[in-house]
């Protein structure tokens, strides 16, 4: 359990090779050069009074409360803005300082309501604390003069209030918005006494550019910016450190509690991934965990058209075991399988894949990474030797040139997006390769040096063009390549990429990127210092997703941008535990640690520990499972915490496959879309009820700690143990820690991981083993995991999904800041205030050709299906390209997407679907059917009345 308050050193930490020794109040203190007197004092245990200073933002020197006396200097300098000097002698407490501070406080309090006892921040107010510290005993000025006491509250934001009557104009919120978040939504309007914090151009917080990250609320020393949950419930009394269950950044949070009720989630300053920052989802959108839609009891039904029936855990598990074994008896051992979830812990995922391999007796296990980052796994393993990003997030602080491809970090990975913006404001250059004009192309104090606005589907042609320039203009880091890479592979890649057909000029008609722009971008990446590639699903979700990943790896190797801070190839993982679910052996061809199932030596280790014979053949991938289901050879599926009926492409195909199965088991918080096709529902646990670990995009293994008991009565891994035991394969663990111990025993890259170590160190990045007992922040430092880096040939092959007279536009799909994946969690929070429905962004030219106006209902149709949604006219997309999200099931964005997929991994090609858009005035046939089926298939039979006592 963590203490409620974290230490605040007043100003940020400084790093320097030079140490400075000084005297503070008679104590000898040694700190790095550049440290403020305030921080030096705090590190020595002396807390100088302060109001405008906090250690998450740079010193400002406005409140004048932190004045100190320095021997030999005139006046009383602010300790927050005065750096330490060798031999300096500082007094932090004298009668002169006491008098001055009391005067300052008196002025603050003269314009501050004296309602401390009923104030929501009572007990957690720095102003209140400082009044006590300086010994304020009277306020001589009264409230008769001008004041702000009746200033109107802004309660427009669903999660926090802005009460200007309590504002002391310290600018901490303004600076947090600028420095930490990088949105610059806040400012101080007015001058002197009229100074007031203003969102946007004196708008409400909701109407302003505010992204609701919570940095301002975190920074506020008073009750001016306050969480509504604290106003409602009061101050928390204890805190538990845990990890956010949203995106792949994996932010560390402190769940601040009253009993077993969460009062607020506060980003943890000690968090390795987020260092005290957060986004609207992690900070505020946790209410889904106790939403009324949650199901807490197991349910079963014979047919998917029957109403659900609540039963005991024992009955549900027995029924599931019997149905699964019956399917196997009828259709064969390989007729059932499972899908693991990137929203679940490593431990929960591990036991599900173990269930499939050891108890089901096949390798039909896959994970949702199939539909997002499976090409990353393939591509980076081929080139570097392991399926993971190369850097930690902090590495970007040393990056000089960021090459951002097919990712929108300020929406998809907001906390890392803020870190990128911080580095960009310091002068790093940015190249964005994306069909869409994402916010990073141009936002306050950030402007991309190049926006390579390529046509969807032309990624590989574009990366080849960049590489062509590097090779033909002599920009290859020959020494790096000679030392670190396979010479045969490099020579044939060099010959291939140097061919004129890969030049920017020849590929320009394919990519749509002017050759001169492409050449300039390539030169910048190759010669601009440390070059780092960051990428997302705009890379992987293509028919050449794996080729593109290898193309980026080629670029990094050719320029020597691997193996040190500031460089690398970095996948921005979508879900919180995508990396972990892949690490845990969720792919049908690999055991944990990415080792092929056909490897007899590896398999035998697992067989000995698991006491089960394992199948040496790869199992079915998710799309293959659907194909096999419609073909009649795959009849039973266990789905852990994923909603494949909403998230996977070609909804008709997916739902037909689910309907063809005889036993579908869903383990989830809610009766999601997939559950409408299920026969057994196991209620799942939210991240607040879990004990385990998540692994984020930088391979960081973070602890997820239980802040409340499972509301279902069982941890998810316990349910799996009970199920397989009922199927005749006894499996038991006393706790999640024992599961991690088994993972460590069986997985070389996790050999040194244990809950005890994670609790001691905070987190570790794998590989964590005897060679690296405290983990590995940077990979491939002295050599590639596979030995020599392997350049792969990346011939551009256009997708078979083509536009035509009937489907002349390209649809590409993505996500937005306020929602997460299929929206199952965020739709059940106040985040719907920002995005109540999916909308279709249409370029003004395409809209005009079709007679569309902003807000019109439109029909979006591809050759596989159609849906209806509202249009928004936007020039963020190039002409000929439309964009939507898939957060709302009623939209059915995936009714439109097709069966095309990546050649190596079957990752769906979500980013390229040929469509037509026309005006509409009614829902699509699919939507009508969806509404009626959904209501019927979610019905729960009323509980039987209790039998009267005889």
């Amino acid at each position, binding site marked *: 359990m963590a203490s409620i308050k974290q230490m605040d050193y007043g100003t940020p930490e400084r790093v320097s090779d030079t140490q400075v020794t000084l005297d503070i109040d008679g104590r000898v203190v040694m700190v790095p050069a550049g440290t403020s007197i305030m921080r030096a004092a705090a590190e020595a245990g002396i807390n100088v009074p302060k109001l405008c200073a906090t250690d998450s933002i740079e010193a400002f020197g406005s409140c004048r409360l932190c004045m100190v006396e320095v021997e030999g200097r005139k006046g009383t300098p602010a300790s927050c803005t005065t750096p330490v000097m060798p031999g300096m002698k500082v007094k932090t407490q004298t009668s002169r300082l006491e008098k001055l501070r009391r005067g300052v406080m008196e002025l603050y309090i003269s314009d501050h309501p004296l309602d401390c006892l009923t104030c929501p921040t009572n007990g957690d107010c720095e102003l209140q604390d400082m009044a006590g510290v300086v010994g304020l005993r009277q306020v001589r000025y009264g409230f008769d003069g001008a004041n702000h006491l009746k200033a109107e509250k802004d309660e427009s934001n669903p999660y926090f209030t802005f009460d200007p009557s309590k504002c002391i104009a310290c600018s901490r919120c303004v600076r947090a918005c600028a420095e930490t978040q990088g949105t610059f939504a806040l400012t101080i309007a007015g001058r002197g006494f009229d100074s007031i914090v203003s969102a946007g151009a004196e708008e409400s917080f909701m109407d302003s550019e505010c992204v609701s990250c919570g940095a301002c609320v975190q920074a506020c020393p008073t009750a001016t910016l306050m969480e509504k949950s604290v106003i409602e419930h009061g101050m928390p009394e204890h805190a538990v450190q845990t990890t956010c269950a949203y995106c792949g950044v994996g932010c560390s949070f402190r769940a601040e509690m009253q009993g077993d009720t969460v009062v607020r989630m506060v980003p943890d300053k000690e968090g390795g991934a987020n260092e005290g920052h957060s986004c609207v989802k992690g900070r505020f959108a946790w209410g889904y965990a106790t939403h009324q839609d949650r199901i807490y009891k197991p349910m079963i039904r014979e047919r998917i058209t029957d109403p659900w029936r609540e039963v005991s855990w024992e009955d549900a598990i027995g029924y599931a075991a019997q149905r699964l074994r019956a399917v196997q008896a009828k259709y064969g051992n390989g007729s059932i399988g499972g899908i693991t979830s990137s929203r679940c812990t490593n431990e929960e995922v591990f036991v599900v894949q173990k269930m499939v391999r050891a108890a089901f007796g096949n390798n039909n296990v896959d994970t949702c990474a199939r539909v997002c980052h499976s090409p990353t796994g393939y591509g980076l393993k081929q080139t570097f030797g392991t399926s993971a990003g190369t850097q930690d997030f902090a590495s970007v602080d040393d990056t000089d040139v960021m090459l951002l491809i097919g990712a929108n970090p300020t929406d998809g990975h907001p906390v890392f997006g803020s870190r990128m913006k911080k580095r960009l404001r310091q002068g790093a250059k940015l190249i964005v390769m994306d069909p869409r004009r994402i916010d990073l192309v141009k936002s306050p104090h950030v402007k991309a040096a190049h926006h390579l606005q390529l046509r969807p589907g032309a990624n590989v042609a574009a990366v080849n063009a960049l590489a062509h320039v590097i090779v033909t203009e002599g920009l290859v880091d020959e020494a790096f390549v000679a030392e670190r890479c396979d010479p045969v592979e490099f020579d044939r890649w060099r010959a291939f990429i140097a061919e004129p057909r890969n030049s920017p000029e020849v590929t320009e008609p394919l990519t749509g990127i002017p050759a001169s722009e492409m050449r300039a971008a390539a030169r910048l990446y190759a010669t601009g210092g440390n070059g780092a590639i960051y990428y997302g699903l705009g890379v992987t979700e293509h028919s050449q997703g794996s080729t593109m990943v290898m193309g980026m790896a080629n670029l990094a190797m050719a320029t020597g941008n691997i193996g040190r801070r500031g460089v690398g190839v970095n996948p921005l993982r979508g879900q919180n535990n995508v990396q972990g679910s892949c690490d845990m052996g969720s792919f049908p061809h690999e055991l944990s640690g990415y080792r092929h199932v056909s490897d007899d030596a590896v398999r035998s280790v697992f067989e000995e520990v698991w006491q089960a014979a394992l199948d040496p053949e790869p199992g079915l*991938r998710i799309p293959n499972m659907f194909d096999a289901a419609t073909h009649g*050879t795959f009849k039973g599926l266990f789905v852990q915490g994923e909603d494949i009926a909403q998230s996977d492409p070609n909804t008709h195909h997916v739902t037909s496959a689910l309907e063809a199965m005889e036993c579908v088991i869903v383990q989830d918080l809610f009766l999601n879309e997939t559950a409408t096709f299920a026969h057994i529902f196991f209620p799942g646990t939210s991240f607040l009820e879990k004990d385990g670990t998540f692994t984020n995009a930088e391979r960081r293994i973070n602890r997820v700690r239980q802040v409340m008991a499972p509301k279902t009565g069982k941890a998810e891994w316990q349910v799996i143990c009970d199920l397989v035991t009922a199927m005749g394969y006894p499996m038991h663990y006393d706790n999640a820690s024992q599961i991690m111990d088994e993972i460590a025993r069986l997985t070389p890259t996790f050999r040194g991981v244990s809950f005890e170590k994670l609790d001691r160190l905070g987190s570790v990045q794998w590989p964590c083993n005897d060679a690296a007992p405290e983990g590995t922040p940077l990979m491939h430092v002295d050599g590639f995991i596979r030995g020599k880096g392997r350049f792969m*040939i990346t011939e551009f092959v256009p997708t078979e999904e083509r536009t035509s007279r009937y489907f002349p536009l390209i649809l590409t799909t993505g996500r937005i800041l306020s929602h997460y994946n299929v929206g199952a969690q965020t739709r059940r929070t106040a985040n719907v205030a920002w995005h109540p429905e999916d909308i279709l962004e249409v370029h003004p030219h395409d809209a005009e050709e079709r007679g569309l106006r902003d807000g019109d209902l439109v029909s979006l149709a591809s050759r596989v299906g159609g849906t209806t949604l509202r249009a928004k006219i936007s020039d963020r997309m190039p002409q000929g390209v439309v964009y939507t999200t898939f957060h709302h099931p009623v939209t059915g964005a995936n009714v439109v997407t097709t069966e095309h997929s990546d050649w*190596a991994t079957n990752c769906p090609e979500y980013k390229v679907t040929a469509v037509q858009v026309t005006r509409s005035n009614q829902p699509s046939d699919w939507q009508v059917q969806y509404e009626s089926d959904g209501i019927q298939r979610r019905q729960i039979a009323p509980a039987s009345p209790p039998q009267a006592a005889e």
Partner: protein
Amino acid sequence: MKSTDMIRMANQIATYFKSYPHDEAVAETAGHIKSFWDPRMRDALYAHVGSGGSGLDDLVREAVAVLKRGSAEGQAIR
């Protein structure tokens, strides 16, 4: 699985490896199918080749021959 989907997937793999020298391309295509395709998918591919292999890239046919030969000899191809 529909045969059109199977043919497309197999041809996509062959198309990628076609950039490599022929023997290597055949081996890599075979290795990829062996490593990532479930046996029932491979059996369907073998059956399709056996019935003429309509629509399949020549490289796939050669890879299937290698796979069948390896299978007969009990060799693992990865």
